[in-house]
């Protein structure tokens, strides 16, 4: 910020040149570029890494390695440039005219088709990129789950303007209910005994398990909503915080789900494909909701509830449904989380988790699907990248958050509507 104001014309010139270079490139071309970059890494990544003096392919764009051994920074920069940035940009530039045509052609069809094509490419990129190491795979899956958590919390804290602290509680409910479903039915283990159904049915019934987890969380949300939505104010924050602790201690004291030791041996159902598909559905549904008039009613409730009532908006129903809807997706995210780690214990769903999700929401931006994605991906990757700093990490991330709060009080990309058509459109005159 200070830099830009010190030398505005130079900054503007640079920005103008950059946007001149990229303004005609549609999303489709960028995705193709990323796909090629990911493929390139798969193909020659290890040779390039050795060539620039790295012991192996840098896992998270070399961010971790940079902090661990600063000597390798030039090598990492060379790697990132030659494997990611240059191919990405070149391919995007070269395919832009063609991609523009394709994007225009796709948009003439129903929106779903264009959406599916883009999602498929995004999935391809993630799949190829995360194929390099298990760590990458895990990070991608956890990031997608973080996106789901952030999006759903944004519905309450951003769109509806209430302050809910119970998201880890909903996540825990979802995680445990889903785990009990799958472990109880398909796995022979000490807690639940013999498997009841054949194991091959498991993956097919996994969506049912997730939905059960979601509904469990939604019912939990109802228990909070009934007392706290009679009036506006701080009640929800307090009651939801209490709810989170209640859920945690109930699980800790329930021996049949393992108590504080946690619940393990979940089957390996939540692979990248499953997580990606569920996250995409979550994003689609939440975006559908917040762009509909029934969903925008949450905004009216936030900005002026009395006026909303006077304009025929059923505010009570709006608040309840939005809250339960958000809880549902937190529950589903919890179910996925349990099956990604294949182990859950109640300690996971405490204040630390709450702080993490809240940070993602407020960092990314209130009232914005974009913002939620930015916040979740940003904080997740930052958290992973700063891991070598250990305890310092929990100084840097909050500091960053404070800076965001000072300069952009509602978050990085707040109050921006996620217009699919705008994102997918071709960019040419």
């Amino acid at each position, binding site marked *: 910020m200070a830099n830009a104001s010190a030398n505005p014309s130079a900054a503007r010139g640079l920005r103008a040149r950059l946007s001149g270079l990229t303004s005609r490139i549609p999303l489709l071309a960028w995705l193709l570029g990323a796909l090629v970059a990911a493929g390139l890494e798969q193909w020659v990544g290890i040779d390039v890494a050795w060539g620039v003096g790295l012991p192996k392919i840098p896992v998270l764009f070399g961010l971790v390695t940079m902090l661990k051994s600063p000597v390798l920074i030039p090598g990492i920069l060379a790697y990132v440039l030659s494997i990611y940035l240059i191919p990405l940009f070149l391919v995007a530039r070269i395919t832009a005219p063609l991609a523009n045509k394709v994007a225009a052609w796709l948009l003439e069809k129903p929106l779903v088709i264009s959406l599916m094509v883009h999602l498929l490419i995004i999935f391809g990129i993630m799949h190829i990129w995360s194929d390099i190491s298990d760590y990458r795979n895990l990070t991608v899956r956890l990031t997608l789950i973080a996106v789901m958590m952030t999006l759903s919390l944004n519905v309450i804290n951003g769109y509806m303007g209430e302050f809910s602290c119970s998201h880890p509680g909903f996540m825990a409910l979802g995680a445990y209910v889903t785990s009990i479903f799958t472990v109880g039915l398909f796995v022979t283990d000490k807690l639940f005994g013999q498997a009841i159904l054949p194991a091959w049915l498991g993956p097919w019934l996994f969506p049912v398990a997730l939905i059960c987890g979601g509904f469990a969380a939604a019912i939990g949300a109802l228990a909070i909503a009934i007392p706290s939505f009679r009036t506006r104010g701080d009640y929800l924050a307090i009651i939801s915080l209490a709810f989170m602790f209640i859920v945690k201690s109930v699980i800790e004291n329930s021996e049949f789900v393992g108590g504080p030791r946690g619940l393990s041996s979940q089957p390996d159902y939540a692979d990248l494909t499953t997580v990606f598909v569920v996250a995409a559905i979550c994003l689609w549904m939440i975006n559908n909701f917040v762009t509909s*008039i*029934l969903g*925008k009613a949450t*905004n009216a409730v936030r900005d*002026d509830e009395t006026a909303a*009532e006077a*304009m025929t*908006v*059923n505010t009570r129903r709006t608040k309840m449904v939005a809250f339960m809807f958000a809880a549902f997706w937190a529950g589903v995210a919890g179910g996925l989380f349990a099956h990604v780690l294949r182990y859950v214990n109640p300690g996971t769903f405490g204040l630390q988790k709450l702080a993490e999700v809240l940070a993602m929401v407020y960092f990314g931006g209130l009232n914005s699907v974009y913002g939620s994605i930015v916040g979740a991906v940003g904080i997740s990757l930052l958290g992973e990248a700063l891991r070598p700093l250990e305890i310092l990490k929990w100084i840097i991330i909050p500091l960053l958050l404070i800076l965001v709060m000072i300069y952009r009080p509602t978050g990085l990309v707040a109050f921006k509507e996620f217009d699919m058509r705008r994102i997918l459109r071709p960019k040419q005159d």
Partner: protein
Amino acid sequence: MALLEVKNMTHYFGGLRAVNDYNLQIEPGQIRGLIGPNGAGKTTIFNLITGIYTPSEGSITFDGKNIVGLFPHQVASLGLGRTFQDLRLWRHMTVLEHVMMARYSKLDYGFVGAFFGTRKRYQQEEACRQMAMDLLKMLEIEHLADQVVINLPYGAQRRVEMARALATEPKILFLDEPTVGMTPEELSQIMEVIRQVHRQFGLAIFLIEHRLKFVMELCEVIQTLVFGEVIAEGTPEEIQNNPKVIEAYLGEERVE
């Protein structure tokens, strides 16, 4: 039968009697005024009828239905629209969104439609958008449709609020001090808007006002409220010459 009928309505805030034995009858298409000094209980009467408060005693029937105890949104969707003295616009929403939001109770695609984006939802919202644009055109603010309301000048905000109230398809419109904080120029504009709305939709209008000139020009029947009690009711001329009204407004002793 009267469109709106309030009988013997009394309301207490704790021990304080804010409204005492209030009666009102509004016929379809009538314009009525309610005047009175600050703190007389005018807005309280609005809030009682529109369901924000529930009266301690008395009955309110609208269109033949008893509306005491209904939620404000239920009262509003029966056809009782209102504006607010302090505007109460939704500060992060655009003009068009305001008007579309007021169609809430007329949409029946339900939450399933909202979650899954059904065809019905898009059809209904498109119809709703058309209707909202027509209203904005009528109030001459269609060029502001995509503006966020807090960026608009005061007069335009008033119009947005009017458009929003009209989008609920009211049979009777309650206007709470529509001229507050307006310049004389804006004043004559809003008067024209109210007249036009009245003509075009054949609404009944119930108006709270401070500026006597404004009420005298618009209303057919005027009530004067002092300390929660109606002290006079009649045509503008009758009210103007009523000694009790003069006393309430100007004090007992005239300064020569």
